[in-house]
């Protein structure tokens, strides 16, 4: 039931863009994105509640396609501080269980 994220890992140079995808086999009601830096706890980035909705956070934005059961995270003009592991999170519809995707490791190089 765990949402699958792609790619599993990505390496960028500062200033480059990246897209991280989150796909679920189950219907999604909402999708959230988190970032976890090495040795730290995950930190909430943003929430998308409606299908097709896009949200932005600095130069990080996300979209949610409810019909396709997918969400994508867009990192524009990446900075060194963007390095970390990104997780999508969602509630399994029909339950109160909140689960996370498989994770994407992102490393930004100077």
């Amino acid at each position, binding site marked *: *039931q*765990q949402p699958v994220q792609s790619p599993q890992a990505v390496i960028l140079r500062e200033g480059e863009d990246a897209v991280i995808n989150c796909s679920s086999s189950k219907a999604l009601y*909402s999708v*959230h994105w*988190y970032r976890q830096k090495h040795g*730290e*706890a*995950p*930190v*909430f980035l943003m*929430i998308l509640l409606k299908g097709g909705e896009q949200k932005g956070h600095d130069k990080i934005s996300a979209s949610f396609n409810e019909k396709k059961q997918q969400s994508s995270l867009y990192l524009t003009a990446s900075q060194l501080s963007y390095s970390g592991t990104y*997780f999508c*999170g969602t*509630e399994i519809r029909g339950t*109160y*269980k*909140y*689960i*996370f*995707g*498989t*994770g994407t490791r992102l490393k930004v190089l100077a």
Partner: protein
Amino acid sequence: DAGITQSPRHKVTETGTPVTLRCHQTENHRYMYWYRQDPGHGLRLIHYSYGVKDTDKGEVSDGYSVSRSKTEDFLLTLESATSSQTSVYFCAISESGQINEKLFFGSGTQLSVL
């Protein structure tokens, strides 16, 4: 930010011994969660709570039990620890006050079962 304290931060124990991890929050949040994080598996839900004495199983609940006798404390117990339970354990609360929205995590407990 919500105040969450996990204790202990690090623990080494032997196979077969009981272990209890504590999660303490200071802002009366209703919804609390326990996750484990392992390389290659991301964050997996063990148990969650939606109020005092109201708990339910997550994806990987076998070998774990929880209790919530007070709003502020959510305890995770490994009845008889096994090496497969070596992991980093995170407690979280739903910071917005709504279930499953904007989770805020504690600093984690590194548990090693030898």
